[in-house]
């Protein structure tokens, strides 16, 4: 299964309603579709995902890194040799994990198609059949956020993520109103996205506690691991790390410093499925549950999350996962023939299925790829 070509296709799809969070406003998703061909006439697809405001990478840098540096480094190699290819990529290319993850997803997709198996069967098999998902509510007025929660409750969601990061007073109201709207048996999670200082975080979280948040995510700046440990010690609510968990090395430091009670793993931060498996093993050895976080993925990236989430033991510690769910930011369209929708979540009672097709279990809609590749010029 020798790799013969690697292509990077940037795509841009708008959202119907702007999504606001502590890092800014999202009006569209721009990700890069990775297409790898091998000499067995199999094409594998992956997706390199970024978040403006968080990622150092951009669609422009991903296209160039993949086509100019990764392609020559891996063409001619056997697509089965993922561990080896990851090392080759790391030797030639520092960082750029999102670019690497798209390539890595495509290799798994190809491997699965060749073996006629879904990728989860290559990652240890299914630990669970389906993945519990949550719904993320972007920053808005507390009333509007409560309304969204109420509306989405009807779709079977049993966990909501409340985005905060403004002043403590209004953030407390955001959490309170959402709790009021969803009732006591639904889980409410708070995500600060680095929006607080250590002191502000402690103050705010102590006030959130009245509304029993399941956990509070990334209360302080990504680099402030000691500060996160301080917050973690000062409050009763579990603290999870997201932006801080930006590489396998970072995961190790978070655990070592006892800064977290849960780790949010975003596959693109770690360079794909295999490295994320290693992070999950670190978490397992420390007894720390993981959450599969979402980015502004299209469906290809979401499928990778779903396959990962069903096969990793530490992803099933009672936490719902954002990454495998449908994009909660009203993405207008997608790039696969079938897309998991809110109605699918509803029919599964708050869960999603990874599908059982070969590889990452999706069929690409080439017409849409063509259409949305014309929305972005690089």
């Amino acid at each position, binding site marked *: 299964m020798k790799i013969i070509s690697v292509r990077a296709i940037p795509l841009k799809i708008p959202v119907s309603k702007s999504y606001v969070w502590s890092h800014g406003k999202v009006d569209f998703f721009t990700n890069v579709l990775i297409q790898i061909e091998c000499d067995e006439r199999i094409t594998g697809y992956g997706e390199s995902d970024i978040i403006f*405001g*968080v*990622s*150092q990478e*951009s669609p*422009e*840098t991903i296209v*160039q*890194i993949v086509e*100019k*540096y990764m392609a020559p480094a891996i063409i001619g190699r056997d697509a089965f040799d993922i561990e080896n290819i990851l090392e080759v990529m790391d*030797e*030639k*290319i*520092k*960082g*750029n994990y999102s670019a690497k993850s798209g390539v890595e997803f495509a290799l798994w997709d190809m491997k699965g198609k060749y073996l006629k198996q879904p990728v989860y069967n290559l990652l240890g098999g299914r630990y669970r059949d389906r993945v519990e998902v949550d719904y993320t509510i972007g920053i808005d007025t507390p009333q509007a956020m409560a309304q969204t929660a109420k509306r989405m409750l009807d779709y079977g969601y049993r966990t909501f993520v409340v985005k905060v990061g403004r002043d403590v007073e209004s953030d407390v109201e955001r959490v309170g109103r959402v709790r009021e709207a969803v009732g006591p048996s639904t889980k409410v999670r708070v995500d600060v996205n680095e929006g607080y200082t250590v002191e502000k975080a402690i103050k705010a979280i102590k006030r959130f506690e009245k509304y029993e948040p399941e956990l509070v995510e990334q209360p302080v700046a990504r*680099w402030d691991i000691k500060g996160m440990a301080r917050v973690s010690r000062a409050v009763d609510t579990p603290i999870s790390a997201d932006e801080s968990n930006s590489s396998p*090395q970072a995961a190790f*430091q978070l655990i070592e410093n006892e800064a977290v009670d849960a780790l949010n793993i975003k596959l693109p931060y770690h360079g794909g499925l295999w490295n994320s498996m290693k992070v999950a093993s670190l978490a397992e050895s420390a007894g720390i549950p993981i959450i599969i976080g979402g980015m502004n993925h299209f469906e290809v990236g979401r499928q990778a999350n779903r396959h990962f989430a069903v096969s990793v033991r530490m992803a099933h510690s009672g936490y719902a996962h954002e990454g495998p769910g449908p994009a909660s930011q009203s993405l207008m369209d997608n790039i696969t023939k079938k897309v998991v929708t809110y109605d699918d979540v509803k029919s599964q009672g708050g869960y999603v299925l990874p599908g059982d097709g070969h590889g990452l279990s999706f069929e690409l809609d080439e017409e849409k790829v063509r259409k949305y590749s014309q929305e972005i010029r*690089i």
Partner: protein
Amino acid sequence: MKPENLSFGRVDRVQYVIVRVLAGDLDGWGEAATLQGPTWSEESQESIHSVIENYLSKIVEKQDTRDYYKILRLMDQRVRGNSFAKAALEMALIDAYCKELHIPVCAIWGSFRSSVPLSWTIANNDEDLDADEASQMVKKGWKILKVKVGSLPVETDLKRIKRIREAVGDEVSLRVDANQGWRYDQALSIIHELNKLKVDLLEQPLPKQDLQGMSLIASNSEVPIMADESVTELRDAVGLICCRGSSVFSYKLTKMGGLTKARSIYEVAFAHGISSYVGCMIETSVGTAAYLHFAASLPELEYGCELFGPLRLHGDVAKKPVAYGQGEVFVPKGEGLGVDVDQKKLSKFVDQ
């Protein structure tokens, strides 16, 4: 350029992004150099170019160069990381700003020296070639040599260092740079040998994130440990200082995100007794000039610099390249960076 064998591979070509800022009727020039792609850090010529063109230039346009500190803040708010791209643009802004004030860039802080002692890098990965080159350079008047290691077995690297020391005698300052290429046990096994060979600096022995390892090596080593890849941001510097991971910092404007940020790191390090060295990414005369103005303005610069880019490269973009003496390099005089770009030379090196 004259090739270098580094821990991550052989480099025989440097890729540049040259930035020109137009401000009123003045212009300013900046530069970011990368070693054949994203090998040293995650940035590459392509990423620097596209981040400047697509994102940073939009932030800078219509701003006043006098507000360069504010511009830096805006760049940091809107673009994460990408320190090489930001540094190149900041260089150009400060060049234009200083031209407007009719002062050299080093005059922002004041100048402490008009020339800087210069280190030459030996990186042939071959005992004989290394020893020959070392003695030739010393004959030419060089007093500082730096040996690149980390891609060969540790014993082989140690032999290379021994041969060089034998070839040049004890008077020459000899340094060793592993560019993150060693594991902890490898570094530990060699530091006492390095001390016996009177090596006066060991640079970045371990992977950049391994502060604990650096700190253990540093506490076991009579040879001062210098941090390079490990210190790119002020926060890294604070981390290193707190864990005593190194006693010398290597300053590079691009990895640190520009003159202003490098200076902030220096102030904190200086206050904590950390010594200084100015490294390079093998810049042309444009980037080298910026590094030199930075070097000129440091109150203490104990270990000199390695700003040999224009000597090592087979070409330059400056009308009048940076001037060198015997084992030293001169800080350009004149306004701004003090280097004029020759647009004809520049166009010769532009690849589409």
